[in-house]
């Protein structure tokens, strides 16, 4: 949080942002940001029936199976978090 903005109206905005998952900040790593992107993508597929059935046809699977797999993959969509080096 930048200090000169701490006392302005925008603090409320930042607090508000921080309350939601998927939002980021200046210290976000590549891994974290991309994980969010992947989860959003998967959620979008599960949430849009047309997209889900498109994938089901392409994959030759049932729609339910596709949705299930997408949901499962949300756990760690980009693999385990990289080791911290510091």
């Amino acid at each position, binding site marked *: *949080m*930048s200090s*000169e*903005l701490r006392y*302005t*109206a*925008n603090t409320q*905005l*930042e607090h508000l*942002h921080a309350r*939601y998952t*998927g*939002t*980021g*900040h*200046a210290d*976000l790593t*590549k*891994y974290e*940001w*991309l994980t969010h*992107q*992947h989860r*959003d*993508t*998967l*959620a*979008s*597929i599960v*949430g849009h029936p047309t997209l889900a059935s*498109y*994938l089901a*046809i*392409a*994959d030759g699977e049932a729609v339910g199976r596709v949705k299930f797999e*997408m949901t499962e993959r949300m756990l760690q969509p*980009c*693999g*385990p978090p*990289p080791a911290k080096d510091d």
Partner: protein
Amino acid sequence: MTSPGSPRLVDSFTAPKEVLQEFADLAEEENVDPFAETASKRQIASRQSDYHNRKFNRQANESGDAFKAAEEGKDVEGGYKDAMKVQLLEKEEQRVRRAIEEKEKQAREEGKAKMDLDKTPPRAELQAAAQELAAMSGTKRKRRWDVSDTAEDGGENKENKGGEWSKEALEGAAPKKRRSRWDATPADVSAPGETPKRSRWDQTPVAANGGIDVPMTPIIMNAPGFMQEDKHNRYLTDEELEAILPSSGYAIVTPPPGYAPLVRPPKLTATPVTEVGGFQIQESSDAAAAAAAAGLAPELPTEIPGVGSLAFFKAEDAQYFAKILKEEDETELSVEEMKERKIMRLLLKIKNGTPPVRKTALRQITDKAREFGAGPLFDKILPLLMERTLEDQERHLLVKVIDRVLYKLDDLVRPYVHKILVVIEPLLIDEDYYARVEGREIISNLSKAAGLAHMISTMRPDIDHADEYVRNTTARAFSVVASALGIPSLLPFLKAVCRSKKSWQARHTGIRIVQQIAIMMGCAVLPHLRNLVECIAHGLQDEQQKVRTMTALGLAALAEASAPYGIESFDNVLKPLWVGIRLHRGKSLAAFLKAIGFILPLMDPEYVAYYIKEVTIILIREFQTSDEEMKKIVLKVVQQCAATEGVTSQYIKQDILPDFFKAFWVRRMALDRRNYRQVVETTVELAQKAGVAEIVGRIVNELKDEAEPYRKMVMETITKVVASLGASDIDERLEVRLVDGIIYSFQEQTTEDQVMLDGFGTVVNALGIRVKPYLTQIVSTILWRLNNKSAKVRQQAADLTTRLAVVIKQCGEDQLLNKLGLVLFEQLGEEYPDTLGSIIAAEGAIANVVGMTQMNPPVKDLLPRMTPILRNRHEKVQEATINLIGRIADRGAEYVPAREWMRICFELLDLLKAHKKGIRRAAVNSFGYIAKSLGPQDVLQVLLTNLRVQERQSRVCSTVAIAIVAETCGPFTCIPAILNEYRTAELNVRTGCLKALSFVFEYVGPQSAYYADSVVTMLEDALTDRDLVHRQTASTIVKHLALGVAGLGCEDSMLHLMNLVWPNCFETSPHVIGAVMEAIEAMRVTLGPGVLLSYILQGLFHPARKVREVYWRIYNSLYLGAADALVPFYPDLGELSEGQNVYDRHPLQMFI
């Protein structure tokens, strides 16, 4: 020279005595400090009642930290056991003192004749005392210059008689120094080996004798120097005694062996106040008087070394801050002393400093709280809070310090819990709401820090304290603890206390705790309702009347808090309550009735009738009571009975109303304000069940009563009843009596007030068309009163016209309206602004119902008459006038020549400066109406020229008016003119134009699509301006424009504007960045999130943190606005995959 007949001549003439006296008074007055009185009002102690000031009698104990002791495996002094013993002792002491006072009083009455006016004690007693002194091995010194001493000594004697409270027992049981008093030698002198943990304010602090290092210095709970400060309480010196007493017959008794004179603590002697000694006239006081005479302020420092300048400094402060007032060599001080001085400086800064100084000091003391330690901190803070001359602001600040420090110290505060409570509890019964809230907050934080067990063990001794004040505040504090730590955790303790066998005071306090919990927590008691009721239920049959009363009050509070639920929890108490009202009288009956009143609304409608029947008998009996408190409660209960669903209208009419009206509808009730309100409220509630006709029928004749307050009470009741129930119930006969009574009481009023006016308006409006037969009479009354010589009467008549206009029109009496309109028109020369305002409002009301075409006087005459009135500065006149003019502009603008309207336009500009928002809004709207009828050009010209004026408010209102004109006449009429005006070199005008445009685009919405391209060049200019405000306002325009044109095919120009807005995202000024962020968000709607994301991606991982922060903030707004829509736009980052982390979004790469 003097003949026997002539009056005797005096040898000199002098001024009459009265004149001399007057001069003397004047001379005295010159020395009077005019602020002395207000200063004393600011002091909390001087304002509060004796009861509140009992806080100064309290004594704080240290509460040992049992937890810490258990950890360290040793016994603590000052624990719960000791506290209980101390408390028992105090109670006994008070009992004995009371007994002695009683005895003395008796003795005084008996020996009154003998004592007569002789103030000196009888000779016999003196001899006895001398003998006693000689005989005693001398632990005590008899002093007879102090009256209360006798009591103390009596107490000691009594104890010496032995029994449970024998001296040995006491000394064995209690901590050693309990009994020492200010007249006795501090025991540490005789027994230096002991650590004097229990020393009190009146004892010499330990540091004074030998500097034994005690971790906790005792807190002086009373103001230091309080006794010494007062000349009259000071000891008499030997010289003074010799001067007073006869030289023979008195001998100086040598002090008994073992007596050591009390050594004053250096802290006190150092203060200037205590240095006052003897009757000698001091040189310094001469100097001070001279200085005061010369108009110099008394010498109080405003610059303190190491503190800097302060906002103020009081004489009393010198006592507390003596140590830091003088310069010291800091190298000689020990670490502890340094710390103490540091705390004092910070506290002085907080208490007396200017806001910025205070702020930093507060932060410092908070940050260093643990470093300073609880002891040194509270030793300094708490005495300050007990200072008698404390003012609100100081108290607030000190309480704030405690709050902050508490938070940091956490469980370190344990030993100080009781001391803090003694200081903070009085806040809980303060008259000031905010003080109560502060007190609650502190106690709640304290209980969280110290823990429940410690709080209970600390406060338990005060529960059956002999002083009611202490018990009261303790109960309130306990309820705060309950709300902080949860009711369930406190329940077992409460159960035990409420059943205490040892003393009724404990039970009383326990029940009061429950009552306070209910009052404070409201419906949050519901989950624990059954337990709480069970806790106190048995108190209804307690042997002590006070306990029974308190129980009933507690039940009332619980029922009130839990309404409308929870009747099943009260099952057990119903019977005792209802039996109780037959057994009790007076105060406790009142409490029982109160409880019943609050329980009734919770009951099932099926059963409630039975219970009400039972209670009604008692209620009716108590109607006759002369006790005001009882009267209030009876009325309240009747009101509650009537409000329950189960009670029938039949029952109320037959069983309650006759007695009720006989007892309460008498003239006497109208005289007391509280009674008056209660009776009116209760009657209105009864009317809900009994009906309008029943109630109005009973009181309508009283409208012609000869007592005006009583008539007013009747009128108010009728108003409320008719307003809530309508007048359809009222039959023809009653209607005649009602209207007749109302006209009579309206005419007969001597003080014009709102009640009569409201009553008249409400009743006539409720009757509607039925009032037609009486209208002629009513209107002639109004006309007659409009010409009254009293301005108030004229005003009231005009107000009544306003209220009746609609009804008169309904009745089809247009002639009457015309007549009223003409008379009011003639009255427009009225000089009293309040009356003039009412007259204009009445004229407006008539114009409203009649319509502009039929209006008499015709609008073309009326409006020119209003124009000069617009210049009137009175708010009421302005508002009424602008409303009337706005109405005419809206409905009948064509009846007035355009020239007149233009004149009004110029006058209206002045109204844009009005303080009242309603006036400004009406004025701005009027511009819209006028522009609509005249065409926008001229009005717009007026408004645009007005952008050049100085006052900001006037300019802002002009911009709003421009926007309204644009909205009513179409944007195409205004936008060219605005763009043209923008080319003026004046900054104010340019900003005004931008603002006007921003409002225009906000109001016209999607229509802006037609004008987007025409304003782009202007916006280009504004967004690249050096002036921050320009860019801010331009961003606001872009926002409104972008939102207006979303989906209407203006993407190209919007993208252009986006490129111009974007660089402003690094602005830091709050308003500018706010406007820019909003513009960007609006762009998300118009351009779509994908476009925006491509802008944002540039800076999300920028090497500079400041850039990243800004970009992430924008990203977050975008993400929250359109998370799902972003999915297809995220870049393909598969190439970044490394090791286990694969960043390809495989599902998106599939295709058929």
